């Protein structure tokens, strides 16, 4: 007997692991599960391992001290050899993990895998998703920069909306009255011990149940799940038309795992680490906090909700969503698994995917935020100033100076909070413009107390020139009638942008 065989035997006699491992790895699975659709679960686990490993490596250098964390990230980025790469791997690994976990969830939902007898596997999966999101948020906090600071402020403000115990919850979360060192150490403990510990234990249970209950078979229309017969049917499928999990189905998992790890590494190498952005100094208020990618959609939702819906949405919707996810296997635990026979399920997934994609896309351009420096940084294009009277040009000055540009774009630059004003004169008459400017309304602040009467006149004169050549400015017919002492006006066409051509 060779020496390694003897060593193996010596170890195996004491460990006795060969049996259970062989059982787990070689157990027969239905042939249909050896599909590329079934690789996302194992990929999530592989990414979890990647996160643990890169996380431990970062912990070799990181220190959860509010006064040092930011500097240590700079050291990691610039001084520790390849520190930037490990930070990038951890950050991109996190994005990939959230994405793969969500895809995995959508897949098992569409394949009806949450039905009998795998209800508990699904429920634990829901908690795994929540933990993954929790890891993403707490991880963003450990990157202790401006985004982290204001992300915490947003988190605290959300908790502060809880009735009765909101104040206590805020202090519990922050570890004190404000965001400071105690907050960072709390989130460190969460991110490094509490959440990953729970995540690993639950992942273990999740995988254990997959092995014990078998991988969900490929759903066939008309093959209904019944509690009385399912186990028997499944065993028949696995044994008669099955193959051992290893290597029959596992090779695809292996390929995909390698591909995803490579993708993380490539993203890390090309795009580099996340931040840190500015120092976590709250007195630097010229900052534009942005959440990390997994939370961008929430950012959009919170921007578009009407004010009175904010608190109900923040406090009621998340528990409902979680309750629906947890209750799903109990409500729809048996019956049809195939997506061909579950249109509601398919449309739900498609609807959520479209919502998620468009919300996330919106959050990358944030049309609801004023562009804070548009008033000083984006001048009015000269085309809008040519052939204007001095008063109108003065109005353009007022327009720029009073920061109207922060919310209104002209010629394609400026904020998008309010409507673009390139052709505002075709929509509002002079009187309506005056009213809108002075009294505001429809989400626009009132400028009555900030504009002097001459400024208002100049501004409105300028706004009144904003219409295309071929379209006259809107005008109030009755006013024209009154001005001309009765009788209809000769023409309602007023000279506008490029008026020299029409005259």
């Amino acid at each position, binding site marked *: 007997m060779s020496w390694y065989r*003897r060593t193996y035997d010596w170890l195996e*006699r004491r460990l006795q692991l060969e049996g259970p491992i062989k059982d787990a790895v070689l157990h027969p699975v239905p042939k249909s599960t050896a599909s590329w659709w079934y690789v996302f679960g194992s990929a999530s686990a592989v990414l979890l391992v990647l996160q643990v490993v890169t996380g431990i490596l970062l912990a070799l250098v990181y220190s959860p*001290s*509010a*006064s*040092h964390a930011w500097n240590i990230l700079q050291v990691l980025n610039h001084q520790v050899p390849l520190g930037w790469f490990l930070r990038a791997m951890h950050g991109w690994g996190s994005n990939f993990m959230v994405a793969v976990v969500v895809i995995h969830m959508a897949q098992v939902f569409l394949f009806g895998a949450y039905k009998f007898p795998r209800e508990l596997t699904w429920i634990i999966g829901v908690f795994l998703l929540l933990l993954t999101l929790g890891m993403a948020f707490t991880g963003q906090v450990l990157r202790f920069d401006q985004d982290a*600071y*204001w992300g915490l*402020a*947003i988190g*605290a*403000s959300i908790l*502060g*909306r809880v009735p009765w115990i*909101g104040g*206590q919850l*805020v*202090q*519990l979360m*922050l*570890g*004190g*009255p*404000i965001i*400071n*060192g*105690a*907050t960072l150490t709390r989130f460190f403990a969460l991110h490094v011990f509490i959440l990953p510990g729970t995540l690993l234990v639950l992942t273990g249970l999740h995988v254990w149940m997959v092995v014990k209950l078998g991988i969900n078979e490929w759903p066939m229309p008309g093959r209904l799940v019944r509690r009385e017969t399912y186990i028997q049917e499944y065993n028949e499928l696995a044994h008669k038309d099955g193959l051992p999990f290893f290597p029959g189905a596992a090779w695809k998992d292996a390929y995909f795992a390698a591909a995803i790890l490579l993708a993380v590494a490539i993203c890390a190498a090309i795009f580099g680490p996340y931040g840190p952005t500015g*120092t*976590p100094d*709250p*007195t630097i*208020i*010229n*900052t534009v*906090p942005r959440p990390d990618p997994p939370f961008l959609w929430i*950012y959009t939702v*919170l*921007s578009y909700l*009407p*004010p*009175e819906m*904010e*608190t109900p949405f923040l406090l009621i919707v998340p528990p409902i969503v979680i309750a629906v996810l947890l209750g799903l296997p109990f409500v729809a635990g048996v019956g049809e698994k195939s997506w061909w026979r579950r249109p509601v399920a398919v449309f739900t997934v498609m609807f959520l995917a479209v919502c998620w994609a468009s919300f996330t896309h919106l959050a990358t351009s944030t049309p*609801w*935020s*004023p562009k*804070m420096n548009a*008033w000083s940084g984006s001048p009015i294009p000269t085309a809008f100033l040519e052939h204007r009277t001095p008063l109108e040009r003065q109005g353009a000055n007022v327009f720029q*100076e*009073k*920061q*109207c540009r*922060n919310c209104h774009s002209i010629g394609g630059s400026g904020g998008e*909070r309010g409507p673009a004003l390139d052709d505002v004169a075709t929509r509002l008459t002079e009187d309506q413009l005056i009213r809108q400017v002075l009294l*505001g309304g429809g*989400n626009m*602040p*009132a400028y009555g*107390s900030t504009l002097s009467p001459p400024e208002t006149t100049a501004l409105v004169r300028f706004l009144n020139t904003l219409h295309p050549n071929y379209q006259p400015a809107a005008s109030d017919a009755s006013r024209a009638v009154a001005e001309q002492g009765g009788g209809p006006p000769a023409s309602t066409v007023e000279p506008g942008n490029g008026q020299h051509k029409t005259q």
Partner: protein
Amino acid sequence: MDEKLPPPSPQEQEQEQEQLLERDRISRRSFLMNVGLAINAAVGVLLAVPVVAYILGPVMRRREYLTWVDLGDAAKFNPGETKLVSFRNPFTNEWDGETANIPAYVRTAAPGRYTVFAVNCAHLGCPVRWFSESQLFMCPCHGGVYYADGSRASGPPERGLFEYPTKIENGHLLIEAGQMPTLSNRAAVRPCREQSQPTLVKRIAPCPGTDEPTIG
């Protein structure tokens, strides 16, 4: 090197265990075991008390978090101006670093009349920016806008900016500060004294025109 460490087969093992358990079901040993479990439960509860108290520590100190903070000579704030100031939070450790420097806006509406706003947006706490030309506070997060007096102008916030209680002592401007303003400390919306307000206005600005402070 032929070692013999044969494991008992699972079934044998189970039977054996069951027999042993059966024999001990009503015996001194099982009684002692139950007592042992009970003792552990009691000790567990006993240990849980300090653990829970430790975790809730920051919550239980709640009332002590407020104190009067000196913002300096009141004369340096010019009437008609809104100025960004910062102060060191009164409850702070050395290792809090820059996070303990808290900004605030001091508005001097008229000589001697000071209003101090928190920079935190009343929506979700982002730092609002002051634009003196248009006399507006704008929030970079979700587009909340406030007027110079702190009342809500537009966007998702459902109320005006949070205000610190102020007082003047020996010519210095003092504010009562120490904790982050959220909707659930004393900064929460309170009913206004005048009842005659139309509901729309009430929703937009909790107590317009009053000097009632909203942070606590």
